[in-house]
Structures are given as structure tokens and as C-alpha cells.
């Protein structure tokens, strides 16, 4: 049997170890490590790069944007009295906030685009918390590109990145505080873009697509997008939109000619919304009458 003193010391050591573990792990959450997925030879622009542009359409009746109850925080209610969801922003049949990117492909000389590296912008992308929602709602960055996070609201937010391939990151930002900077080191667009949320205001969501190359764009309010500086070649282009567990992806093969302008129009609709038409009670059973609130 251990003596009382020994047991006391063992207990103290266990407690201190537990607290040290907690402390070190929480620090670890803020320090990203490169996954090595960004390796390859540098791409040298040849001057014959082209563009991929297109329009994201929404077929069928546009889903109604849902009103958000902001009454839990008076500052949100006063700044955004009519806040609505931004998951399916449709105007004249055109869909905003769709992230379009080159997934993979082959350049005209037969080399794979995945085998190249591209310079990471030193200027940060900006994610603002304004009116108790994120601006922009969908953001694209290159891996290792800094993201500046600002708070333009008269309330405190916490910014919680919930990636699957990068470390979690959760920071508080009071109103008037200096901008925070966060960097995602590993490319992450699949199975979903990185979701950013505020645990204080659970309706606040934003999505960040992280790629090792600069060939991505987010559709504007009129559904349009343009990806510039694309080397001539044949690519699989993906359009991703939020909804459901991991969002919805549409893929299209696009060929970009030398100095050419390729078109890639995508269409989403009710079936791609990630909204069930019936409620699954068990994986194999469905109750059609319980589909909607």
C-alpha cells in the first residue's frame, strides 16, 4: 500500500499533468502545421493564361430565406432587425455564394496542375462580423494566406473555425478589439469548405474554401463568377454550395484554350438544396407527412 503522503503527491502530479495537457492542447489549436500538400514546382506564367467564367442558376422556386431570431442579443436586434439566412440567396433565378474552383486537371503540356505551386498572396483576406453576420458569407483563400477577422458590431463575438483537415481555432473578439489574424495551412474544400461559426450567436455561419492554387471564385448576387489566370488545359471544375451535412457539389469538365475564355454554367435546384422533402425517422424509413415544420 502507498503511504498517505505518496498518494497525495501522486494526486497532485496527476492534477498538474491534466492542467498542463489542457493548456498545451489549447495552445496547439492555434498553431497550424503544414500538411505538405502544398508541395510541387513553382508555376511560371506564360502569358497565355485564360479565364473560366459562368453563371450559377437556381432551378425551381427559390427557397424562402428564414428570419433569424436575434432577441438573445439586443445589439444584434438593433443593428440587424430583419436578419435572414444566407444559405440560398437567389435573385432572378441566379444563385449567390457558390464557391467555384478547379479541383484537378491537366495543363496543355500534359503536366498536372496539382504538381505546381503558386505564390501565396501576402495581403490578407478579410472576414468581417457586421450586423451579427459574416461578410462575406463565402470566402476563398489560398493555404497559408492570412485571414484578417474584424468585428464591426457593438457586441462580442467568438470566431470558431471548425475545419476537418486544419486545427480547430476559437477566439473571442469584443467590440472595438483589434483585428485577429488566422491562417489555414492545409487545403480544405472537401468534404466541405471550412465552416466558421460564432458560438455566442449560433445563426452566424461563414464558409472558407482553402486551396493550394488561386483558381477559385465565389458567385456574386447575379450568379456570375470569373476565375482568372488559368493555364491552358483541361480541368475538373467544382461548384460547391452549402446545405445538408457537407453541402452540395457539382462537377464539370472544362477546357481552357490558350488565352481563351471558357464557360462553366452550373445549376442547383430543390433536390440539391440539402433539404429533405420528407423526414427520415430511421435510415430506411420515411414519413412523408412530417417533412416540414
Amino acid at each position, binding site marked *: 500500500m502507498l503511504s498517505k503522503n505518496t498518494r497525495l503527491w501522486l494526486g497532485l502530479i496527476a492534477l498538474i499533468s491534466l492542467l498542463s495537457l489542457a493548456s498545451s492542447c489549447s495552445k496547439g489549436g492555434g498553431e497550424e502545421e503544414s500538411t505538405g500538400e502544398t508541395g510541387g514546382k513553382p508555376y511560371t506564367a506564360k502569358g497565355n493564361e485564360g479565364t473560366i467564367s459562368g453563371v450559377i442558376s437556381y432551378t425551381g422556386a427559390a427557397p424562402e430565406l428564414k428570419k*433569424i431570431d436575434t432577441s438573445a442579443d439586443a445589439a444584434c436586434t438593433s443593428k440587424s432587425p430583419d436578419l435572414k439566412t444566407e444559405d440560398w440567396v437567389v435573385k432572378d433565378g441566379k444563385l449567390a455564394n457558390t464557391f467555384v474552383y478547379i479541383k484537378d486537371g491537366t495543363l496543355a503540356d500534359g503536366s498536372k496542375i496539382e504538381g505546381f505551386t503558386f505564390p501565396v498572396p501576402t495581403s490578407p483576406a478579410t472576414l468581417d462580423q457586421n450586423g451579427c453576420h459574416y461578410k462575406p458569407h463565402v470566402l476563398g483563400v489560398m493555404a497559408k494566406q492570412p485571414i484578417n477577422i474584424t468585428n464591426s458590431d457593438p457586441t462580442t463575438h*467568438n470566431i470558431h473555425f471548425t475545419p476537418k483537415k486544419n486545427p480547430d481555432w476559437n477566439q473571442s473578439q469584443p467590440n472595438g478589439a483589434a483585428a485577429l489574424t488566422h491562417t489555414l495551412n492545409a487545403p480544405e474544400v472537401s468534404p466541405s469548405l471550412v465552416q466558421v461559426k460564432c458560438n455566442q450567436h449560433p445563426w452566424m455561419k461563414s464558409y472558407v474554401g482553402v486551396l493550394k492554387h488561386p483558381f477559385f471564385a465565389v458567385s456574386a448576387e447575379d450568379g456570375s463568377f470569373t476565375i482568372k489566370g488559368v493555364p491552358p488545359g483541361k480541368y475538373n471544375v467544382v461548384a460547391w454550395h452549402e446545405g445538408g451535412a457537407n453541402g452540395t457539389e457539382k462537377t464539370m469538365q472544362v477546357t481552357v484554350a490558350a488565352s481563351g475564355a471558357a464557360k462553366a454554367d452550373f445549376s442547383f435546384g430543390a433536390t440539391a438544396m440539402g433539404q429533405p422533402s420528407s423526414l427520415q425517422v430511421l435510415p430506411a424509413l420515411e414519413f412523408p407527412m412530417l417533412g416540414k415544420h
Partner: protein
Amino acid sequence: MSKGLHRFALLVACATFFLIIAGANVTSHDAGLAVPDWPLSFGKVFPQMVGNVFWEHGHRMIATAVGMLTIVLAVYLQLRDSRRWMKRLGWIALAGVIAQGLLGGLTVKLLLPLWVSAAHATLAQLFFLTTVSIAVFTSRSWVMPPTSIADNRAGFSIRSLTVVALVSILAQLVLGATLRHSATWDQELPTSLLLAHVGGAICVTLILGATIVTTLLRYRGDKYLTRPAVFAAAVLFVQLGLGLAAYVTRSRSPYDPQPLTPMVAITVAHVACGALVFASTIVLTLRAFRVVDAEQGEYVLAAA
């Protein structure tokens, strides 16, 4: 036995139940990381209670109150209870609440890893078990149980049945905690865990149902055992309904703009009712052990 001690033990058990409800609200509102630091909240003892900070910091305040009540209970037991094992149980309760507080801190510091969150929810139920047990052990009916009644019928002993029921409920609570913490309100619940929890519900219903029926048939007229059995039957029935309702509302929540009241209220009620099923089975088990000699199939007084 001090009546005051028993009443205080009841207060601690009730406060623990309230704490479980507060904790369930944190999970259902996805408020676990609304306050990124610990043990202080935004570096303060009392931050502004806006948005989900209300749920997270409110949970911390109630937990602090339960911790203090447990310290008082542990000291109270040293002073007013002559049984050595009860004095030890007081310290065990105190160790449990301290460990639970540290686990709660770990959930924040480690950004809610599943194993820590599930462990935090499980230890909450084990601490509740401890406080309910202390309330039972300090009760007048434990010290002076009713007159024993001979029961020589064959079949499963009520002791074995209650223990199996208790273990199955605890396993189901662990499964439920793991299921709840494996996906936030805006994500779909993992099918494998969901099916395991449904299977667990069927097992618990069969085992606890058999225990209740056996108790009611074998010890008919003996309220000492039938009362907790009837209460367990009632909360089990409600719990099954709440489980189905929780599933229906939770399945819809990924498509809602935020955690809505029906989903939050029903899932929290499901957690709370699960704790009540556990508590009533604890009472039934302890009482069965107090008055029933399973091997002989007759009532004997266990050591006080």
C-alpha cells in the same frame, strides 16, 4: 439520523439534477465554446450574459454552486453521520464534483473533443448517482426500513435485476451522451451511434420493464419497493416518447437557421428524464439491497 442532513442531501441531489438540465441546455444551444476561456469567462467572474454566453456562463455558475453545496455536504457528513463509509462517500462526492469541474474546463480548453464531452456528460450522471445515493442513505426509511416480508418465489432475484437495469441505463446514458456530442445541432447525427442508442433504448425498456414488473408482482403492497418501481415505469414511458420527439426535432435542426425552441426543449427534457429514470432505478436498487436477500428470496435487513 439527522433530518437536516437528509434534507441537505436532497437539496444537493436536486441541485445536481438542475445542473444536468443546465448542461443539456449548453449542448442543445451549441454554447459550449461561447466563452473561449476557463475558469474565468472573458477574464471576468461575471461577464455580460448575452447570446449563448447566458447558457455557458449560467452553467458554470450553477456548477460552482453545486460544488460549494457538495463541500458543505461532505463536511456535514463528517460531522453528523457516524457511519465511516458514509464519511468516505462524502469525500467521493467532493472528488467527483472537482473532477467534473476539471473535465468541464477541459471541454473548453480542448475545443470540445468528443471523448472529453462524452466523459463530462457521463461523469455528470455518475455524480448524480452519488448524490441520490447519499440522499437515500441518509433517509429515515434507509435507517429504519419497513418490516421484512418473506418471499420464497423462484426466478431472478430482484437484486440482480436492479443491478442489470442500472448498468444498462448507465450504458444507455453514455451512448446518448456520445451521440449528442458527436454532432452539433446543425449537423446530422451519425447513423451508427443513433441506431446503437435506439437499440439501447429497447434493451433498457426490456430490462427495466422486467425489473419493474417483477417488483410490482413479487412485492405487491410493499410501498418501499413499489413506489420507486412505479415512478421508474412512469418516467421510462415519458422518456420513450421524448426520445422519439427528440429524434424528430433533431433531424430537422440542421435545416433550421439556429437551434429552435422545440428541438432545444425536447432534447433537454430527454436528457433530464433520462436522469430521472436513472435516479428512480438507483433508489429501487438501493432499497432492494437494503431489504431483500436475493439468495434466500426473502427480506433481511442489510447492515445500516
